[in-house]
């Protein structure tokens, strides 16, 4: 049963299995364990980021493609659901329509960009996606009549997902069974399903070909695999998954805007999480996302305290200012690419030996 569920790709480390089991357990019970809105936000963000980062890992870790357009697809998903709910009204039909259009748009864009630039070199693709993604982000904020510009769009979700909605009147373990809880479980099970699906993909024969392309694309081509087709398919698959992640995030936030979906900072976050968690293993996405989102939410407060305590020392206080946390992440990122390219998961697996 477990073997089928995980597609035969087990964590292969006692510590890792423990951490993953704990993470899934905590996320599954989050509404009952935590009460504050902030903690729930953190849990929901972790769920969405696991999907987002895992889909990016399909590109970077498994196929060896560097893309900077992943937030574009994420944004398309969020905007698709958001704008449909905003303009048609809060119905399930509108949501499905928005998601459908977003998926089609993402697939079309991924196909075109892929066919266009994946023939050449990895480096070419990285540059072109960077250019396309930034053009897209600017376009989204320019077309303000349609997308709401920099402010984004706040919208209402279907009745069942609103905080005011009660599934049953009684409280279960002191937690109200309301729309917010239903939304959370929609996110949780959605993320779980997509993650298991991705796990299935990377352990399928298709996934093996992707890894062959990563290791040596020339040899893969010589063995008779059309690498362009495989790369483009992987690109489309990753794009579609990122779109789903974006849609989930929009449902949770009930908001779609450039800062939360399209900004380059999120792209950097994804890159950092993949590398720090471990490239080429989807479990890295889980561990990385959890650690990163936790650190983002709670470490910054710690940095602020340190910075406030050190106001007397000018440069040091600046270095520890909470806005500078990206600096430390950047340093950590560079060091981890050098010294442990396999990330946390790789380190944990190596412990065994």
């Amino acid at each position: 049963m477990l073997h089928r569920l995980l597609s035969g790709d087990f964590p292969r480390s006692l510590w890792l299995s423990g951490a993953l089991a704990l993470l899934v357990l905590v996320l599954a019970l989050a509404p009952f364990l935590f009460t504050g809105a902030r903690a729930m936000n953190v849990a929901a963000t972790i769920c969405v980021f696991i999907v987002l980062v895992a889909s990016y890992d399909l590109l970077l870790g498994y196929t060896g493609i560097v893309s900077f357009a992943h937030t574009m697809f994420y944004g398309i998903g969020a905007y698709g659901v958001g704008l449909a709910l905003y303009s048609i009204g809060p119905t399930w039909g509108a949501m499905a329509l928005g998601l459908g259009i977003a998926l089609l748009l993402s697939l079309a864009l991924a196909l075109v960009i892929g066919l266009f630039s994946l023939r050449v070199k990895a480096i070419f693709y990285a540059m072109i996606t960077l250019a396309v993604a930034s053009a897209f982000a600017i376009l989204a904020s320019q077309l303000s009549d349609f997308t709401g510009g920099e402010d984004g769009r706040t919208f209402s979700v279907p009745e069942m997902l609103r905080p005011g909605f009660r599934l049953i009147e009684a409280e279960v373990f002191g937690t109200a069974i309301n729309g917010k809880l239903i939304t959370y479980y929609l996110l949780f099970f959605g993320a779980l399903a997509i993650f298991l699906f991705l796990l299935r993909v990377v352990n399928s024969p298709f996934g093996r070909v992707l890894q062959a392309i990563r290791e040596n694309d020339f040899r893969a081509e010589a063995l008779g695999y059309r690498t362009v087709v495989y790369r483009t398919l992987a690109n489309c698959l990753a794009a579609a998954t990122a779109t789903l992640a974006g849609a989930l995030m929009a449902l949770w936030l009930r908001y779609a805007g450039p800062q939360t979906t399209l900004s380059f900072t999120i792209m950097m976050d994804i890159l950092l999480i993949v590398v720090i968690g471990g490239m080429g293993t989807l479990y890295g996405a889980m561990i990385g996302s959890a650690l990163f989102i936790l650190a983002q939410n709670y470490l910054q407060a710690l940095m602020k305290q340190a910075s406030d305590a050190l106001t007397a020392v000018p440069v040091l206080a600046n270095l520890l200012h909470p806005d500078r946390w990206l600096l430390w992440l950047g340093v950590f990122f560079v060091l981890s690419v050098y010294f442990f390219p396999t990330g946390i998961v790789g380190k944990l697996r190596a412990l065994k030996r």
Partner: protein
Amino acid sequence: MTPIATPTDAELPKLKLDWAPLLVLPALALAALPLIGSAPTWVTLTIAGLAMGMMIFIMASGLTLVFGLMDVLNFGHGAFVTVGAFTATLVLLPMQGWMQADSVLMNLTALSLAVALAMGVTGLLGWAFERVIIMPVYGQHLKQILITMGGMIVAEQMIHVVWGPDQIPLPLPASFRGAIIFGDAAIEKYRLIAVAVGLIVFVAMFLVLNRTKVGLLIRAGVENGEMVEALGYRIRRLFVGVFIAGSALAGLGGVLWGLYKEMLTAAMGSEIMVLVFIVIIIGGLGSVGGCFIGALLVALVANYAGFLVPKIALASNILLMVAILLWRPQGLYPVAKR
């Protein structure tokens, strides 16, 4: 002993000049004229486009040469642009008196001091960047992209640490402000200066690459690095030199760009990098001539589109890139090896 025929220069076939990309530029400019409708506006826009193109060329040339020579694409190149611009403020802000004085000589002195410092600092930074960040990952594209991107984040954040989180205004020197009225067209003085500086850099680079031994080695290295090494030249040293020069040029471009915008932000480098990447893809990775034409094309299209359909200004560059790549998939002037 049989005499061997020694080939002379006359026997070598001359390389045929590829004219087609050169014609794209005037064709584009002329095609835009009826769309814009008024000649003075067109002149203003074209000059603005040329000025912007020259600045982008200065920033992009080092990047494309480094890629051609050593197959290293530095995603952190934008950091040098930002650092160059911010370093210039170290001279320009204390010397504000000289900058605002109504004397061309005093303005120029302050400015050239700033440029010299900026180029020196970015050159040094480039050297350090090459040593620390790039050297361990030669030949691994994936890691190069990741590492240089990381280096870029760190550099951008360090700017925040040193100069604070606010934008820094950088006013133009007094004698470069204002515009020259030429017929009905107003041409800003600073844009003319940018065009002049860009032309000087291009001509100097062209002469170095085509008339000196170092230039010969660089061009040979771009074509076939292993052969240059086999002939006994240390291509590593050559590469470090080019990297430093490219970084210094990015610094120069940063100063010019900062004065053009008259406002410095820590993200200015990464913003301009998008255009720079489009430029070097259009020009053909590794080709300086292609980079020059690509920069002018991109800037002209950006200016015309900004005037005609402002909402899709940046998207127009993507369309330009797509069009060029459909015509020549390897860029305007493909470099033989790749």
